[in-house]
C-alpha cells in the first residue's frame, strides 16, 4: 500500500478505500452545526410566510418583495466573509440554506444559488484583495445580484468552444464582444462573471478558437453599461419564476481590473466554480424531494380505495419506502461532502459530482412516484406535483449534463490505471470505523469496490488511452462509483460516533444500502453482456 492519496472516489476505481476521508463522518464543530440549523429554521419560517411557489410559477416571476425579504435576512451574503459584509458561513450552512429554500420553492432557490453558488463564486476563489473589497460588499447585501455567464449557443456541454472575445485596449481596458445564452439571474443581475477569449501574447495572430480563455467580472446593468444588453425572459418548462435570459456584449468596455484570475486561465476558473456549484445542486434536490415525499405520504394516508388507505398497498409502500431511503442517501452524501469541504479532508471534485448525479436522478424518480401515488389528482395543475416534476427536470442538465459528468468522472477515475495498472490495490480493501450491526453492508461495500476495480482494469486494458472515448463503459463505471460513494456516505452517517440512530433510521439506512448495491449490480451486470456495438449500429443508421 502506498501512502499516496487519490481522493475517495478516484481511489475506488483502483480498488482502494481511503477510509479516513469519510470516517468518522466529518461533522463541522458544534457552533457551525448550530448556525446551519438556525439558518435553515429561519428560512423555513420566513419562506412559509413569504413565498407562494404556485404564484411564482404562474406569474413566471419572483415578486420584488421575496427578493427584498432575502436581502433583509442577509441571505445574499451567507458565504461571503464577514470582513466584506457577509455572514462568513461554511458549506454546511450553505447547503442547509439551499435545502430550506428549495423545500418551499425551486425557482427562488435558483436565484440564491445562481448568485452565491456560481455567480460570485469566482470572486471568492480568484479575486485579489482589492477586487474582493470592490465587489463583495454590494453582493453580500444583495444590492447587486450576480450571474455566471459561460454558455453560448454553440458552447453548451463543450463550454471550451465559446466564441466571445475580450480584446485589450491601449489603456489596459478590455473590449467585450459576444453573446451568452440561458444565463440564470440574467434579468435581475448587475454583476456577471463572464468568460471570453483573449489574444495570446506569445502568439497574437492565432486563430480565434486557439486563443486562451480568460475570466472577467462585468459590474453594471444595461442602463449604465453601454454595449451590455439583456434579452427577454426565456419561456421554460420549469423554474419558471427564475430569470433566464441572453446576455450580449457589443464593443462593451470594461476596466483593466475586471480580469479575474490570471489571463488565459479562465477555463480553469470556470471549471472550479462549477465543481463547487454542483455540490449545492444536490442540496436543492434534497429540499424538493422532501416536499414531494411529504405530499405523497399525506395523500397515501388519506386516500382510501377498496375501503382502505392506499398506504397499506404493497406497491404504494415500495414507492414510499424507496423515496425515504433515497432521500436519506441524498442527504448523507450531500452532508458528507459538505463536511469534507468544511474540514478540508482532501479533494471533493468527484465526490460533489457523485452527489449531483445521484440527487438529480433520484429527485426525478421521487417526484415521478409522488405524482403516481397521487394518481389523476397528481396530474391536475391545481396540485403542485406537476410543478415539482417540471422544476426537477433541469437538474439533470445544468451545471454539467449528467452524461458529460459521467464522461468526466469515468475518465478521471481511469486515468491512474491507463498510466499504470500497478496503481490497482494489491490487498482486499477495508472500510474502517463501521458500526457493528452494519457488518453485512460493510462486507458488500468492500466486495463491490473490488468489483469496480476489476471492471476498471478491464476497460483500461481494452481501450488504453482511448478509454476516454468509450462512453458506454465510462457510464457504467460511473454508475458503479456513484452507488459506492453514496453507500459509503450512508454507512458513515449511521456509524458516526455522534449519532444515536433509532431502529427506524437504521432500517431506512439499510434499505438505502440495499438499493445502492442493486444499482451497482445492474451496471456491473451490463458489462458482462453489453449491447454497445448493436446500439452504435442502430443509432448510426438512425442518424445516417
Amino acid at each position, binding site marked *: 500500500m502506498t501512502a499516496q492519496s487519490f481522493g475517495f472516489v478516484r481511489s475506488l476505481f483502483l480498488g482502494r478505500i481511503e477510509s479516513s476521508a469519510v470516517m468518522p463522518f466529518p461533522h463541522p464543530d458544534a457552533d457551525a452545526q448550530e448556525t446551519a440549523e438556525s*439558518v435553515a*429554521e*429561519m428560512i423555513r*419560517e420566513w419562506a412559509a410566510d413569504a413565498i407562494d411557489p404556485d404564484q411564482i410559477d404562474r406569474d413566471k416571476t419572483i415578486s420584488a418583495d421575496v427578493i427584498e425579504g432575502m436581502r433583509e435576512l442577509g441571505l445574499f451574503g*451567507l458565504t461571503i466573509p464577514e470582513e466584506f459584509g457577509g455572514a462568513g458561513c461554511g458549506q454546511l450552512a450553505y447547503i442547509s440554506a439551499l435545502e430550506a429554500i428549495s423545500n418551499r420553492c425551486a425557482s427562488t432557490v435558483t436565484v440564491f444559488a445562481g448568485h452565491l453558488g456560481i455567480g460570485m463564486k469566482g470572486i471568492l476563489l480568484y479575486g485579489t484583495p482589492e477586487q474582493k473589497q470592490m465587489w463583495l460588499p454590494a453582493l453580500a447585501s444583495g444590492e447587486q445580484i450576480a450571474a455566471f455567464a459561460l454558455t453560448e449557443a454553440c458552447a453548451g456541454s463543450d463550454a471550451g468552444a465559446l466564441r466571445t472575445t475580450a480584446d485589450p485596449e491601449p489603456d489596459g481596458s478590455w473590449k467585450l464582444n459576444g453573446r451568452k445564452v440561458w444565463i440564470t439571474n440574467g434579468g435581475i443581475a448587475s454583476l456577471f462573471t463572464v468568460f471570453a477569449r483573449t489574444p495570446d501574447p506569445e502568439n497574437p495572430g492565432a486563430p480565434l478558437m486557439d486563443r486562451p480563455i480568460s475570466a472577467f467580472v462585468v459590474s453594471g446593468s444595461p442602463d449604465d453599461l453601454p454595449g451590455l444588453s439583456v434579452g427577454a425572459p426565456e419561456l421554460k418548462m420549469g423554474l419558471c419564476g427564475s430569470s433566464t435570459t441572453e446576455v450580449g456584449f457589443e464593443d462593451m468596455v470594461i476596466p483593466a481590473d475586471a480580469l479575474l484570475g490570471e489571463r488565459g486561465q479562465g477555463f480553469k476558473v470556470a471549471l472550479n466554480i462549477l465543481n463547487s456549484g454542483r455540490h449545492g445542486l444536490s442540496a436543492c434536490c434534497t429540499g424538493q424531494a422532501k416536499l414531494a415525499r411529504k405530499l405523497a405520504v399525506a395523500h397515501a394516508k388519506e386516500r382510501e380505495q377498496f375501503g382502505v388507505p392506499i398506504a397499506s398497498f404493497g406497491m404504494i409502500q415500495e414507492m414510499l419506502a424507496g423515496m425515504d431511503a433515497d432521500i436519506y442517501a441524498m442527504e448523507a452524501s450531500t452532508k458528507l461532502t459538505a463536511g469534507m469541504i468544511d474540514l478540508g479532508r482532501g479533494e471533493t471534485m468527484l465526490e460533489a459530482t457523485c452527489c449531483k448525479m445521484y440527487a438529480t436522478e433520484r429527485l426525478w424518480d421521487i417526484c415521478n412516484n409522488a405524482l403516481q401515488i397521487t394518481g389523476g389528482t397528481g396530474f391536475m395543475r391545481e396540485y403542485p406535483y406537476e410543478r415539482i416534476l417540471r422544476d426537477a427536470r433541469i437538474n439533470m442538465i445544468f451545471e454539467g449534463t449528467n452524461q458529460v459528468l459521467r464522461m468526466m468522472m469515468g475518465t478521471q477515475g481511469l486515468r491512474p490505471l491507463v498510466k499504470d495498472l500497478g496503481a490497482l490495490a494489491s490487498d482486499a480493501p477495508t472500510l474502517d470505523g463501521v458500526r457493528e450491526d452494519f457488518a453485512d453492508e460493510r462486507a458488500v461495500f468492500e466486495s463491490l469496490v473490488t468489483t469496480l476495480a476489476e471492471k476498471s482494469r478491464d476497460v483500461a486494458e481494452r481501450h488504453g488511452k482511448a478509454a476516454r472515448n468509450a462512453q458506454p463503459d465510462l457510464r457504467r463505471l460511473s454508475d458503479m462509483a456513484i452507488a459506492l460513494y453514496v453507500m459509503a456516505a450512508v454507512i458513515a452517517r449511521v456509524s458516526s460516533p455522534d449519532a444515536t440512530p433509532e431502529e427506524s433510521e437504521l432500517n431506512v439506512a439499510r434499505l438505502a444500502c440495499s438499493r445502492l448495491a442493486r444499482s451497482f449490480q445492474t451496471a456491473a451486470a451490463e458489462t458482462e453482456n453489453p449491447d454497445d456495438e448493436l446500439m452504435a449500429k442502430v443509432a448510426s443508421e438512425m442518424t445516417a
Partner: protein
Amino acid sequence: MNIVACIKRVPMTETQAKVTADGQSLDTSGVEYMTSFYDEIAVEEAVKTKEKLGGEVTVLTIGPSDATKQIRECLAKGSDKGIILTDDAWALRDCRSTAKALAAKVQELGGEVVFAGRQATDRDNASVGPMLATYLGWACVTDVIELELEADKGVAKRESEAGVETYEFSLPAVITCQKDLNEPRYAGLKGIMAAKKKPVEEVPAAEEASQAEVVRVELPPARKEGRVVGEGPDAVEALMTALQTEAKVL
C-alpha cells in the same frame, strides 16, 4: 430600561401528544420544542421597547439546559442576554412555583418591565404572568393588544370578553401579550451570527415545592364521526329534527 422577557419552551405545534404508561404526564420522547407562540410576541415587544426607550433585554426561562436553543433564537431576534433557571423537573412545576422562581430572578436583575406571553401553548394556564406580578407587587395588564410605554408609565389596551379595555399604569409592570400586539421579526443572518457572542447564563432555579399536583393526564376522547342527514333544502327538516331531539341544542 431594564426589560425582561419570559419565555417557555413548548412542544412543536404538530406534536402528537402521548401519555406515559403511568398516566401522570406526557411522554416527551422524540418531542421537539419551540418557543411558545405568545412568548415570541413578548420577546418582540421587549425588543421594540428597547429600540424605543433604550436599555437591555434579558430573556428568562425555567427549563433544562437544552432551552439554550430557544434562548439563542430570542437573542438572534434582538435580545441581549439569556438566563436559564435550570430545573430538570421544570415540567412538573405548578404555576405558583414557576412564578415565584421567576419573581426572585426578576427582582435580582432589577427589572423595570416584564413581558410574557398571555399563556403557554402547552398547558394554556394563562396564570404565570399575573402570579409573577403579584409576587413582585407590580402592576399587571394581561392579554395586551396595544401598548404605549414611557420611561415610568404606560397605556395598554387589552382584549376582554366585554370588549377592549384601556388601562393606564405606572412602572414597574408585567405585561402579558396577546396575538395582535405585534408581528415578530425574523432573526436574519446578522442576528444569528450576533447571537453567538451574547451571553447565556445557567443558574439553578430557586427550589419551591409545587402546591398543585398532577393526578392524572388523559387525552380528550376521540370525537364521534359526523353524519350527513341529507342534501340541499330537503335536508333542513331532518337537520332541525336532529338538532332538537338528538343534540338537544334547539
